[in-house]
């Protein structure tokens, strides 16, 4: 039982940072590639085209 709890909490301890890392990643891609706010769009314009994001 103790071993099981340990294994469970160990995998949870790794799963949570992975989830947070992935979420930060999605947020960054959304900001640099997708948000249409004028300032962001203009600054990221060339990158969005060159990286194949839907731009205008």
């Amino acid at each position, binding site marked *: 039982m103790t071993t099981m709890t340990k294994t469970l909490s160990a995998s949870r301890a790794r799963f949570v940072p992975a989830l947070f*890392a992935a979420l930060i990643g999605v947020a960054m891609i959304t900001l640099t590639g997708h948000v249409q706010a004028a300032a962001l769009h203009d600054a990221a314009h*060339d990158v969005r085209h060159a990286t*194949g994001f*839907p731009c205008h």
Partner: protein
Amino acid sequence: MFQRFLITSLFAGAAAGLIAGILQLIFVQPVLLHAELYESGELVHFGAEAISAHPDLHGFDAMRDGLSVIFTMLTYTGYTLMLVALMSVAEENGAQIDGRTGILWGIAGFVTFHFAPGLSLAPEVPGVAAADVGARQIWWWATVIGAGIAMWLLAFGRNWTMWGVAVILLAAPHLIGAPEPDVFTGPVPTEIGALFAARAFGVGLATWVLVGCFAGYFWQREGERENG
């Protein structure tokens, strides 16, 4: 633990992103600037006189190109965070993660984020006709998520059902179809548009191979340091 994620993602993402930014400035930006001459009407395709295929282009623009490099680094750091998250889950389940296997992860990332959506929504030069941007973004995300799951199933699936689901996930967005414009209005010569798409894919693939390799390398190295 989170430190390992951050160090790996920041080092690998920023390094690959910096190289990507430079590659884009060398190979993609001149094509984009060339297309913008047609978008703005400065050059007219099939106008009264033949147009030289080698016009004078703007040189390096510190503000514009500097921002491009910064945003490329941010974009690839974001991608790397997602990649490293998945690498950690795979390692938990017995996969070997290092610089060499990372190359395969990078190719899978390229297919997921560039090639799968780009197969129907090709990288666009400025000025092309396109459907509503919101609709295209929804299609882009749906295709990327489907392709990402498909890559995972292809790599770690153990039977034909999983591989079959992967094929369906890869094909479905293109069979359904991406949002398309009602009419074509692009003023840019097809030669420039084709070169742009090819260059965007080429630089994307080169960068993703680096992203995967760097991410695998730093992930392994930081792991050894934490454990030893």
